[in-house]
């Protein structure tokens, strides 16, 4: 008798569990669907966007290039024509339209190097930065002022007037020295037998492709 009761009870128990299973499975169907955001949350993105820490100055970049720092990749997001005309030494050309293409993801989505975007101003490079930042890519920077600022400060630095503080003169001489490194020749230099025209050595950037897919099996 007790046994029969027990079996009856266990039968009920299984029915109860079956109903819970069905409710849970049906719950998945009934849940309101929403579009999932890829990458970081909007709030986080907004906080990143208003944070000026992503900018790197032309002086810093010039210093890095001259000291042959290999910890960064320069990415030129302008079009083909501008890239062919002039670009920073060792810059990789990835037009803004193609920034998220699979073939370039090894440059923009990696943890090995800092990625520094630049364009003529920082307008397009900021856009590239936002696109990549939203997807949660790491170590993204933007060259403040872009190529224009590069010309204004490094290639053709403004000569300080006499009433300016000493720092301005120091900065000028540093920038002038940098510009010589990048191949600018100054009139007082011309007398010298041979203007030293030094081109930054071409460095080959190899990026290890990060393996993403988890492996497993039965």
């Amino acid at each position, binding site marked *: 008798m007790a046994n029969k009761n027990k079996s009856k009870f266990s039968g009920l128990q*299984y029915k109860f569990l079956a109903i819970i*299973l*069905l409710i*849970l*499975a*049906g*719950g*998945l169907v009934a*849940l309101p669907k929403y579009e999932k955001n890829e990458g970081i949350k909007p709030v986080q993105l907004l906080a990143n966007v208003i944070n000026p820490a992503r900018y790197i100055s032309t002086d810093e970049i010039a210093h890095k290039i001259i000291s042959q720092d290999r910890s960064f990749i320069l990415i030129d997001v302008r079009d083909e024509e501008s890239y062919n005309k002039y670009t920073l030494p060792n810059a990789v050309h990835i037009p803004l339209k193609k920034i998220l293409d699979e073939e370039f993801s090894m440059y923009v989505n990696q943890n090995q190097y800092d990625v520094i975007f630049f364009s003529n101003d920082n307008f397009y490079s900021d856009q590239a930065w936002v696109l990549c930042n939203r997807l949660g890519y790491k170590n993204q920077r933007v060259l403040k002022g872009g190529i224009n600022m590069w010309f204004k400060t490094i290639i053709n630095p403004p000569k300080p007037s006499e009433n300016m503080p000493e720092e301005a003169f120091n900065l000028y001489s540093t920038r002038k020295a940098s510009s010589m490194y990048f191949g600018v020749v100054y009139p007082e230099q011309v007398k010298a037998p041979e203007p030293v025209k030094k081109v930054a050595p071409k460095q080959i950037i190899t990026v290890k492709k990060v393996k993403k897919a988890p*492996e497993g099996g039965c």
Partner: protein
Amino acid sequence: MGPLIPNDLIPLEWNNIIAILIGIAFGFVLEASGFSSSRKLAGVFYGYDFAVLKVFFTAAIVSVIGLYYMDYLGYLDITQLYVHPTYLWAAIIGGAIMGVGFVAGGFCPGTSLCAVAIGKLDAWVYVLGILVGIFIFSELFDFIEPIFDGYNFGNITLIDTFEWDPYWFIFIFAIVAIIAFAVADFVQKKVKKVFY
């Protein structure tokens, strides 16, 4: 957020340790469900015991429902989970051989090790057979390789291939499971009891 290891929330080095812990738990549950008995396992083919069907079907459904709830709530990215690639003919032929072995020997590879652990002699013989089979397979590998590596359809799932809605698929799958359990119980009552 998840899966935890590919997203670096748990260091990669923990992979094997976690695998061992889960493996121990899996073995314990197999043994606790009575899966170290070849008679119980073979029962599903003769209709006197459907524990195998019930346990594995339930496990699949519970986990898939749980995974999709976690995906919905953002704790897990279901697209990042590993999907085993489909080698069509290798799977069909291998499945047929495994099925024959299952009926004849009364174990699947996992449960045979479980039974070895509790000291069943038939399981020892079975595992020895697995090793002999592996040896023959390795020796014949050059001959078998075109099937082994061929017909690769990639990491496909039913949901991707037929573009089904996963939520409806799970719901219907759950209903099918419960019907299967009811039918299994019905068959079990009709079939002559076997003492084991």
